[in-house]
């Protein structure tokens, strides 16, 4: 038989699954460490690409002077300087992403907890109906 309370609960849950739930369930399927490390890894790749673009713009900004000077400058020192800048840039961006994704994971977990409570409630409703 149709149970009005149960349908309300199921509708609420289905609506959650269609909206915020979709994203949260995807996040919730990871362990905390796995999710955050994956996202930080993606952030490191993005930051590397961004750094590459910035370097390319720096080189092309004054290409002729750069090409003239490239034989005069100490390439090892120059390379070290670039590497240091890269490490600082990526580290700052990765740290920021770590904070953001850790916060998002905790939020998604809390939201999923409510969803699982609804699931338990639903299963209890079915249980009660079964007894009747």
């Amino acid at each position, binding site marked *: 038989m*149709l149970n009005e309370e149960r*349908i309300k609960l*199921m*509708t609420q*849950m*289905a*609506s959650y699954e*269609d909206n915020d739930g979709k994203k949260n369930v995807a996040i919730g399927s990871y362990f905390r460490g796995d999710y955050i490390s994956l996202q930080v890894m*993606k*952030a490191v790749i*993005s*930051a590397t*690409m*961004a750094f590459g*673009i*910035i370097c*390319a*713009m720096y080189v*092309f*900004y*004054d*290409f*002729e002077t750069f090409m003239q000077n490239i034989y005069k400058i100490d390439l090892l020192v120059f390379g070290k300087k670039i590497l240091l800048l890269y490490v600082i840039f990526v580290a700052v*961006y990765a740290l920021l*992403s770590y904070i*953001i994704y850790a916060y998002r994971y905790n939020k998604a977990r809390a939201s999923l907890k409510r969803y699982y409570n609804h699931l338990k409630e639903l299963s209890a409703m*079915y249980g009660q109906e079964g007894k009747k």
Partner: protein
Amino acid sequence: MKSLLVLKENIRKIYSKYENYITPAFKFLLAFISLNLVNSKLGYMSRIDNIMVVLVIALLCSCLPYNFTIIVSAVFVLLHLYTLSMECAAVALCIFLLMFLLYFRLSPKDALLVLLTPICFMLNIPIVIPLVAGLLCSPASIVSTSFGVVTYYVLDYVVTNVAAFSSTEVESEMQKIRIMIDGVLNNQLMFMVVATFAVTILVVFVIRKKAMDYAWTIAMIAGAILNVLILLMGELVLDLNISIIGTIIGAIISVLLAQVIKFFVFNVDYTRTEYVQFEDDEYYYYVKAVPKITVAVADKSVKRINVQRKSATQSKAGGQRTSAREYQSKTGNRIR
């Protein structure tokens, strides 16, 4: 005010009823306006500077997420710049890629502000952006608004220096890249506007969070005044060639627009009708969940009922007193 509330309720009713059509129509309009503005401002590639092309793409945008409109607009900008000069397009592509890689990958929802900011600049009402961002979004929107400002000024720089980019007399192609990057990095007005918008968003956000009467209205007026003051100070100190009257008129129109947006957003829950499907062992459920709508006219009757209830309780209390007096006179006992 009451008629305005009734109007708001009616609009809400219409929105929840025809939400399926209104949202795509809005997306279509946004795409149509933004692509047309790009074409009118840049318009170097005649193939895409065509109303039919814009119409077809805007129609496509109407049934896809907002971010698709942003990508299409960016592609339009790049194509126009490519026709003008490849170096110009390359620098613009680098700027767009940096924005995507460093920020919008983290927060894709904010990307809409990057599209709306240049649109408002072209419509001469840029101040509406920090006001609305401060009212409706978090301070994180400072980043996307700043990107919007940068995008606008980059395009503006290209348009005002079109001769430098289109001429073949420039010594080397590499020099065009330098001119473009110089134009972005040495644009004091751009940095001034970015800073002004950031401060305005913060101030509007802080004031509207305060628990005081008319916090939203005070926030938007304070934000607009602050915005105008900072820009005028910038004009005095850096001599940035800002039109003072234009800024003030723009600020007034922006406050009015923000007031209209506030009227529809504040305290109104635009929950939509939802269609959900699920099943259990016995049934398939196809549920249409319609949000309950409270009619503003009902507010008046609530007041009247309260008054009635008050008078009813008074008369009830009065009744008790009479009966107590009667009881006293009959029995001679005092009631404490």
